């Protein structure tokens, strides 16, 4: 504990000295996020500086080994770092699928050479990654995927199509599931490969969502050359890598259920809709729904702390990630339903400065994907029924 206190003091001092003031304000929109990558345009000098300073310490990936550019921190130290960053309201220096998803998969399944090649640029935010899993017509049924990799000796030729590839149009590289053995039964014969999005034959097309935004793309592969050295894990066992990685994605999406430092919904609602003489929110029925939500959000935050820590420490069943993903997604949807209710009719606006471009409505609509992306809520419930409840035939 004494060591941890010392680490906290050092960290606090370092953050105070190195986190620019403009990086201590809340992230107001997606534009405020630093995604990194070859073509990334920094919003400000401070944004660039903050990334560089944090990356130099490996604190964009605090728990990764220092030899691969990570921070080499223990779980407890990383927790201290998070707490100290939260204390001063520091923005994340980097938002990265490389850090959240690919990195953990490489650390577990990658070769030494792959780790040395791919991890440090992720830590420094130099290469932006996207994920090629879903295919049109397959939805939750990943095992039926049809993107085909044909063996050409030292490389494959990949043909096919992916969908829901987040930010594929802005990503530098992709981690991608391809079918390397068309004869094998569904879950087998799939491999996990990496390739550059600038490879000839790769093209993308954004998908407009009901929120009016396009974070997702369709991605097309037409005779794309993929080197065999970029296979992660065993040939035809890409399913294992994918499953491991999905667990990480789930925990991340589940965490959306948690409203870090957010203002209580009841306060927001009371501000807009008024209070009665007793100081209570003036809409009793909305107030009751808010209280139900706050009770659930409290319990979910507690579960996230408890189970999140146990998952990270390998002391919880991996399927517990599905519990957090399922509940977190549903809770975040409820949060935005309530925000829309609390917002009155102004929240119905779709454009214009007054409503910040219809931000409330668009954010609300965006959350509807939470229970679909990263494995639908139905898939999570199936996993829970099978692996945690051991129900027959689940």
């Amino acid at each position: 504990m004494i060591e941890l206190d010392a680490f906290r003091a050092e960290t606090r001092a370092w953050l105070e000295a190195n986190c620019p003031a403009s990086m201590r304000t809340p992230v107001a929109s997606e534009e405020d996020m630093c995604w990194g990558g070859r073509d990334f345009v920094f919003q400000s000098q401070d944004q660039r500086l903050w990334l560089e300073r944090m990356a130099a310490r490996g604190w964009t990936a605090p728990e990764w080994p220092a030899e691969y550019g990570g921070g080499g921190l223990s779980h407890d130290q990383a927790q201290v770092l998070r707490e100290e960053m939260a204390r001063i309201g520091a923005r994340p220096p980097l938002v990265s699928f490389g850090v959240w998803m690919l990195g953990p998969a490489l650390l577990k399944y990658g070769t030494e050479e792959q780790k040395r090649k791919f991890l440090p640029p992720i830590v420094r935010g130099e290469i932006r990654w996207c994920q090629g899993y879903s295919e049109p017509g397959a939805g939750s049924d990943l095992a039926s995927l049809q993107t085909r990799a044909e063996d050409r000796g030292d490389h494959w030729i990949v043909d096919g199509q992916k969908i829901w590839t987040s930010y594929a149009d802005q990503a530098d590289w992709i981690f991608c599931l391809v079918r390397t053995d068309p004869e094998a039964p569904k879950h087998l014969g799939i491999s996990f490969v990496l390739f550059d999005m600038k490879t000839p034959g790769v093209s993308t097309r954004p998908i407009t969502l009901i929120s009016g935004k396009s974070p997702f793309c369709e991605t097309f592969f037409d005779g794309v050359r993929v080197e065999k050295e970029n296979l992660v894990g065993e040939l035809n066992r890409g399913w294992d890598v994918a499953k491991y990685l999905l667990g990480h994605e789930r925990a991340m999406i589940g965490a959306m259920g948690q409203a870090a430092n957010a203002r209580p919904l009841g306060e927001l609602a009371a501000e807009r809709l008024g209070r009665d003489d007793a100081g209570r929110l003036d809409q009793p029925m909305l107030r009751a729904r808010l209280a139900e939500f706050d009770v659930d959000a409290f319990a979910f935050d507690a579960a996230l702390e408890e189970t999140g820590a146990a998952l990270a420490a390998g002391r919880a069943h991996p399927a517990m990630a599905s519990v957090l993903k399922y509940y977190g997604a549903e809770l975040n949807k409820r949060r935005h339903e309530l925000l829309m209710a609390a917002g009155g009719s102004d929240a119905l606006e779709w454009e214009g400065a007054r409503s910040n471009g219809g931000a409330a409505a668009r954010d609300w609509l965006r959350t509807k994907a939470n229970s679909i992306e990263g494995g639908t809520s139905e898939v999570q419930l199936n996993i829970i029924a099978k692996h945690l409840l051991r129900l027959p035939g689940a």
Partner: protein
Amino acid sequence: MLTEEQTLLLEAAGGFFAEQAPVALRRRVRDDRKSKGVDAGLWRAMGEMGFAGVLVPEADGGSGLGPVEAGLIALAAGRTLAPSPFLSSGVMAAAALAGGGEAERLGALAAGEAVIGLAVDEEGRHAPDRLTCQAEASGNGCRLTGAKTFVLDGAAADAFVVAAADAEGAGLFLVEGGADGLTRETDVLLDGSQSARLALEGAPAQRLGGADLVERFLSLGRACAAAEMTGLAEGVFALTGEHLRTRKQFGVEIGRFQALQHRAAHLFCEIELARAGTLKALRLLEADAADAAFAVAAAKAKAGQVAALAVQEAVQMHGGMGMTDEADPGLYMKRQRLLDRLLGDADQQRELAARALGY
């Protein structure tokens, strides 16, 4: 149960909207900002069918029918998200103007030529018992001062029905779109409709009626909004059912999964209840029954809750496709949100219901 005439009307309206106003029409209106959020051609066609003037007396060129018939048209319109000013103009303005003396305008309404905006809310809130907009007598008419938000169909409107308080309490007033002292700003809303914010500074207005009229006008609007949401729930549920019967995953139609079957079956029951409750409220309104106020609040609360469930299940069961702009469930979700909010959302309706029941 519906009378034979009512059944025929519902069938006719259903056929009309399916043909003349499929969901694609709302999409077009949404994407064409110059439409001002309504389709003028559709509104005129509704005039020709006698739908626009369903509540307008026959003497003034309307159909001279009642709340149930108005509700059935709203229900049919809801199924395909028809982009007409029916609720604002065909239902509520017609009710507000029913006091008489506005034969010409009623005729234009019935013909689907007039659009009248609905100015009730203030500061983003529906609180018609706490109006800050004030009316003062002035010569033959009066003058209004105050501000209104979320004025339904406010961009396309030629005139407005405005709720304001005068010495006698709450009242309804007619203000011309080009009146002196009236400033209008328009907002594009999430469903592609366009509302207005009005600033009134001594704008000339004509008084249409007092608290009784306000009450009837709000009840009729709420009941027809409930009907439109019921139709909306039916419409989006039909899409979902079709999707469940045809879309395959894991090698089988997803409608084979019992968990989805039970959710769909539950939703079916809920829609049955929403429809029955809405029809009952419309009938009680027509009969001017003592418990109509409770019934209308309950019907709108129920329809709002059920339609919300219907659109949420539609997007979820459509999976990733349901999240795309090119698929229809999202349009239903956006319109549902607006209709629920209109004239007080489900939370507010439940509050009204509880008060009506005396607890």
